[in-house]
């Protein structure tokens, strides 16, 4: 359709008119909006600026209460206590130096602390509160609260801070919390806003670290009205967060305490396990440290003292510590040989005191030799030659396979820091690691738990529990999470011939209960608690030919850190096993003298549920045991009853 020129002209005129009107309308709108801007931003700017600066409503986070950790009886291991502290907000304070100077007249702050603090205040955002001091006494706190109006930007408040009422007893297992560091923040993708709260505490070690996400809880929010100095005038509303989940561990606080006390000053580690369920009842590394020191921020000298101590209090020897298991490994070798069918249960080997293999002489610990030995006797008297002999027949790969089957040299899934895998060497491993072929001598060393074999006390406890029950018991540390029972891990049958296992148990019983057994001095005479076990002594040095020629010097004459490790593994009662124990005393000397007596006492404590009765000990030892028991400083369950309700 062709539009007439007249109509087109009319349309154009119409549109021009209306377009210009639209332009005029636009100009009017621009004027209205511009005037409004002018009014708000130029005429009322001062008012609004004041409102913005003293913006009366602020949102503050409420840190959630961290989840509590209890022992198997419900006794508090990690709780929260009230912490009086004082924070400063740069923006509200104005002249920070003057405010801090005023504050120093109320609470003691050293020059160093002040300098550090001023530095931190400058580094943080002007609106972020910075903690000046915490764990103030009530007096200091109220002194600041009273003077608060004269101290702009200063806020006294009450927070919760972590406390470990059991002190060092659980230091390695439960770990500790500490302030969030920049490094921590870098590690976390999309960190919880809570972590930006100054001095917010985060699990750094052990269960505190492994269960961090669950223990932390969710933050709540508070809407508060504040005045221009940033001081809260009133609360307008709050939305509660969620506290962290509570954990109940399988550990028994009294046994844990007893184990620590009994190991005393030794550099040692003990693991006590329920052989049926796998529950760990005690897992104690000695010496320990006080986790509360870390919560408060450990001082330089204290930290140096811990670092420089040659007994390594910071290391968790129970799961991180790896030791040659020594003779406690002999059950592994024997079971491997039996299972492979290379020896018969009644097989005997003659021990002349050494064994010559490809021109090298391997000594038994008893230079004179044991004579003819059967399997049970070889365990009882810990004859080395017996194992040199059978190990050559079965080969290293089968021995190490048996080790893993018994829970040695596998990484157990426990919520603790740096759980070590240990090492059960194989031919392929050595080729891989050192590029060298496996030698017979390596097998001989491994057969008695020396050489390349490395195990943690946890491994040895699991091994003992598995031998005692014939089931693949798995260690468990957390009993329930927020009241919900953690399922017991499956313990399938080990699938070893019952006859073979029984042989091991009889051998282990002979170690303790037979007159010639290496741990006979540590027997339990109470019939219902009879113990079975195995001693181990692992060398940390090579005895050179020259030394041997001079006559091997006894441990006592050596410097501490070159002495042998003493080990003991055991379980009780013999006929109806309940608890297994493994104990390593670093550089303690022989397993029978250094480890077995301590292990017996801890095992008895577990069986009896308290300080063991003297009647359980051989009569000749009772006097000495009594003295020992009296000297131990244990926690008194009665004074601790308050701990239950403390949250």
């Amino acid at each position: 359709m062709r539009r007439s020129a007249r109509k087109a002209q009319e349309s154009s005129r119409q549109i021009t008119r209306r377009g210009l009107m639209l332009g005029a309308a636009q100009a009017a709108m621009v004027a209205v909006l511009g005037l409004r801007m002018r009014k708000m931003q130029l005429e009322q700017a001062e008012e609004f600026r004041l409102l913005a600066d003293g913006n009366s409503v602020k949102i503050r986070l409420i840190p959630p209460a961290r989840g509590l950790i209890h022992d198997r009886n419900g006794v508090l291991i990690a709780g929260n206590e009230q912490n009086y502290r004082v924070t400063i907000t740069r923006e509200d304070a104005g002249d920070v130096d003057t405010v801090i100077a005023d504050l120093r007249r109320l609470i003691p702050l050293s020059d160093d602390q002040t300098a550090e603090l001023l530095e931190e205040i400058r580094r943080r955002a002007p609106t972020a509160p910075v903690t000046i001091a915490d764990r103030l006494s009530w007096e200091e706190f109220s002194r600041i609260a009273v003077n608060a109006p004269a101290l702009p930007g200063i806020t006294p408040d009450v927070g919760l801070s972590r406390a470990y009422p059991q002190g060092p007893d659980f230091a390695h297992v439960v770990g500790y919390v500490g302030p969030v560091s920049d490094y921590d923040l870098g590690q976390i993708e999309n960190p919880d806003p809570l972590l930006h709260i100054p001095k917010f505490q985060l699990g750094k070690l052990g269960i505190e670290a492994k269960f961090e996400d669950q223990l932390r809880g969710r933050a709540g929010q508070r809407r508060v009205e504040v005045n221009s100095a940033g001081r809260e005038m009133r609360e307008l509303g709050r939305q509660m967060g969620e506290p962290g989940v509570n954990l109940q561990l399988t550990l028994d606080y009294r046994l844990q305490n007893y184990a620590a006390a009994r190991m005393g000053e030794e550099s040692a580690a003990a693991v006590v396990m329920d052989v049926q369920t796998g529950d760990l009842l005690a897992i104690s590394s000695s010496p320990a440290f006080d986790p509360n020191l870390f919560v408060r921020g450990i001082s330089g000298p204290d930290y140096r003292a811990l670092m420089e101590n040659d007994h390594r209090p910071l290391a968790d020897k129970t799961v991180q510590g790896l030791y040659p298991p020594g003779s406690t490994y002999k059950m592994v070798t024997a079971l491997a040989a039996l299972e492979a069918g290379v020896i018969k249960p009644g097989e005997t080997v003659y021990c002349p005191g050494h064994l010559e293999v490809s021109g090298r002489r391997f000594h038994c610990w008893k230079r004179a030799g044991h004579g003819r030995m059967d399997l049970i006797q070889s365990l009882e008297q810990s004859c080395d030659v017996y194992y040199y002999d059978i190990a050559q027949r079965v080969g290293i790969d089968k021995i190490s396979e048996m080790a893993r089957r018994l829970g040695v040299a596998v990484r157990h899934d426990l919520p603790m820091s740096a759980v070590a895998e240990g090492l059960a060497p194989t031919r392929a491993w050595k080729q891989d690691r050192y590029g060298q072929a496996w030698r017979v001598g390596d097998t001989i060393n491994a057969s008695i738990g020396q050489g390349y074999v490395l195990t943690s006390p946890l491994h040895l406890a699991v091994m003992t529990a598995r031998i005692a029950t014939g089931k693949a018991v798995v260690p468990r540390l957390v009993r329930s999470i927020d009241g919900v029972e953690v399922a017991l891990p499956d313990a399938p049958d080990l699938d070893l011939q019952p006859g073979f296992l029984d042989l091991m148990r009889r051998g282990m019983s002979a170690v303790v209960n037979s007159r010639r057994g290496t741990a006979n001095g540590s027997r339990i005479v109470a019939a219902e608690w009879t113990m079975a076990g195995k001693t181990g002594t692992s060398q940390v040095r090579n005895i050179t030919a020259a030394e041997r020629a001079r006559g091997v010097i006894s441990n006592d004459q050596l410097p501490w850190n070159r002495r042998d490790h003493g080990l003991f593994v055991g379980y009780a009662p013999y006929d109806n096993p309940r608890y297994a124990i493994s104990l390593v005393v670093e550089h303690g000397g022989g397993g029978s003298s250094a480890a077995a007596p301590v292990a017996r006492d801890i095992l008895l404590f577990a069986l009896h549920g308290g300080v063991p009765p003297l009647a359980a000990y051989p009569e000749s030892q009772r006097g000495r045991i009594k003295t020992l028991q009296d000297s131990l400083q244990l926690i008194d369950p009665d004074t601790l009853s308050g701990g239950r309700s403390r949250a």
Partner: protein
Amino acid sequence: MSYLEANLKTVPTGLRKVLYLNWPVIILLTAVACTGFLMLYSVAGGNLQTWAEPQMKRFGLGMVAMLVVAFVPIWFWRNVSALVYVVALLLLVAVELFGDIGMGAQRWLEIGPFRLQPSELMKVALVMMLAAYYDWLDVSRTSRPLWVAIPVALILLPTALVLKQPDLGTSIMLILGGGIVMFVAGVSLWYFATVLAAGAGLIFSVLQSRGTPWQLLHDYQFRRIDTFLDPGSDPLGAGYNIMQAQIALGSGGWAGRGFMQGTQSRLNFLPEKHTDFIFTTLAEEFGFVGAFSLLMLYALILAFCILSALSNRDRYSAIVTLGIGGTLFVFVTVNMAMVMGLIPVVGAPLPLVSYGGTAMMILLMAFGVVQSAHVHRPR
């Protein structure tokens, strides 16, 4: 054959069209969008990935789409206007049936990897439809009641669908956008006067309907009106947003607090700081100078659209150019008036600056139509 097609030989062809684009408008659009990136970067606390980067990508994509649309002759767009309108209408029905629900309203349609907001498309489709209608209609009939009733129906149909989502902001935009096209097409001013009077009556009856069984608005919408009239009545609830927005705006002063220095947005006092309320952050950080400059940029876009339309003898081109330019400016006016407390809070983003994919893409494509009209104008 239309007047326009009769003059085909004078229209630039091929890549030479680039030289005939309305470059001032392109530069202005880019300037506004860059302001948007800057503000999105600022409200994200100095983080590019949160909002600014996706927005930049969409802007790039939108510019390409705009050029593609611009290169297609305007008569093609006139011919498909009705189709675009019908498609947009069907999509609105589809969103009603299958749409996603976000923030209590049904607005999104999921098509493959894309999330489409049909109501955004309708804002442009309606302008194109009405422009095509008036191009077809004999000029002398423009103000006859029957011929006025048809465009009114074309406006009210999608408006009703959008209102049902419910999205009051977009409904108002549709009515205003459609109204502008009718206005520039030359519908008698008496109609507009009548509608304004009727509107006043409607507002009165809406307010009266509150609490009665035939209540015409949602409760939250009534509350917004309440808080608009007196923000202080509910400083922690709905009024909180308005008060905080005004504090942010006002505290900007003459030159603002400086880029990334606005305490209101930094401290999370501002609601919807990356969408509807983004203008407050601009006003806080760049003050009166920044806020007024942005307003002028928008005003210049419409000014150049008017210039282009007045020099265009093709009726469809002129109407569609004025319609799209005018609609853009109305959106800007509504958003700014809202954050400055001149009108109640309705969901209305600031075009090209607020974070949002569909809106930006469609707006740029609409400007593609404006460019096409400019390039292919009869000479």
